[in-house]
């Protein structure tokens, strides 16, 4: 089987600081509105009456840092009308903006919001796994940026062997759609991808 690079995201240690997102934007000089890596907050539970007080009942919250999943079955590659997106031998899904006509069909198709539209240039852009850094032996910007060391990268099978097989968590979509190259470290309150009791709290 061909090598497939992927990310490990340790939900347990994520403090939701967004250093990964900012480092990505800084590394790639992304303009406003283009966020290759985003950190989602998933929260739930409720406050119930207990005597004269309200007490929390199953109140939970955790963050999920998400970039391109470099899926094994990348739907963006499938649907792109111009072949601007392709999957490399190492599994990295790359987008050549020079061939993009800006139809944004990939952003409709991608369940992870990975392809991001650059309004000014009129083309799509997306996480390229900092392939230029990897080529000279450095970590992707987001991985190197995490103050909590909650992000790792590498061959996805090796990551799974090291960190277990948790590949789907709420609020992420069913991984069978695209086979994302991702493995999660569980937060104590992590919910399954089928869980419907929580809310995505990000406002934009």
């Amino acid at each position: 089987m061909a090598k497939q690079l992927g990310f490990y995201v340790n939900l347990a240690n994520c403090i939701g600081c967004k250093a990964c997102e900012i480092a990505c934007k800084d590394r790639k000089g992304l303009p406003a509105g283009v966020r290759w890596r985003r950190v989602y907050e998933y929260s739930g539970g409720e406050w119930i009456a207990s005597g004269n007080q309200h007490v929390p009942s199953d109140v939970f919250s955790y963050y999920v840092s998400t970039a391109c999943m470099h899926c094994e079955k990348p739907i963006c590659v499938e649907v792109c009308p111009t072949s601007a997106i392709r999957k490399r031998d190492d599994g990295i899904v790359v987008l050549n903006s020079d061939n993009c006509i800006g139809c944004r069909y990939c952003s409709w198709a991608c369940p992870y919001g990975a392809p991001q539209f650059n309004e000014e240039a009129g083309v799509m852009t997306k996480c390229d796994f900092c392939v230029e850094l990897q080529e000279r032996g450095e970590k992707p910007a987001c991985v190197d940026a995490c103050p909590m060391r909650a992000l790792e990268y590498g061959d996805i099978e090796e990551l799974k062997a090291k960190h277990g097989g948790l590949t789907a968590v709420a609020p992420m979509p069913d991984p069978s759609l695209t086979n994302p190259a991702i493995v999660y470290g569980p937060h104590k309150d992590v919910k399954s991808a089928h869980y419907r009791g929580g809310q995505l709290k990000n406002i934009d």
Partner: protein
Amino acid sequence: MVTREWALLIFTILGQMASGALLTLMLIRAFAIRKTNVQQANRLTDGPLFIVVPIMALALLASLFHLGNLINITKAVPNLGTSWLSREVIVAVVFVVLAALYTFLQWRKLSTELIRATIGWIAALVGQFQTIAMIMVYMIRTQPAWNTFATPITFLVTSFLLGVLVVAAALVATRAIGDETQTDLLRSTLRGIAITSIALVGVEFVVLPIYVLYLSTQGASALQTMSSMFGTYTAVLVLRLLLVFVGGGVLGAYLYENAANGKERNLALLVYSAFILVLIAEAMGRFLFYATHYSIGL
């Protein structure tokens, strides 16, 4: 909905109208030839035929507004292997070229009737393939609100409904006055169009509740679609249904009733009103299609 989605709305509505119209015209021709002869058929449909290419051209023009980058369009290497969008683009271009060729040949009566008819039917089939491509563009596994039986049915209904009504309007507009054979042909054609229109509206009213029922059994993003359809956009939905009911249904029935012996001027008004109402209704329907979709996931 930003400008770019409006562009898509216009592209799909007009594109489907154009392919529906060409198919309708080919069918009417076949019917007219059987009933009378080629010359009568030509007299009936040669005028309305001129609407197909401009509508399709307008559709393609609109589609360009959806694109963020027109410079790169020259570099676009179509990904026909897996991308329905790619196929849609190719098919749309082939369709407009074939339709234009057919219109030109038919106008100048070049080549033989057989060859012209063959080209016409091929163009009409490509037009249908275009509708299929449009449908498949939205049948993506990560978009549960779109990836249902309702998308093909509603797209096809839109195509045929707008197709027959725009043809009806064109027939009425270009009708030969004082020619009894033509008038008879027109009147029976309008009756057929009226029945088709009523039936298609019927389909729309059957599909909607089933679609809603289906959505309610699906995941979170499907539920979001529902809540947006019956929340933010209730007014649009109700108005759209009302318009299509009045335009395609009530006016259709009235047209059917009066096609045989009504005053020509009244019939014309009836046909124009029905077309306008249904066009607005279908555009609203397509607006809802885009506005109420929610991706699965993020």
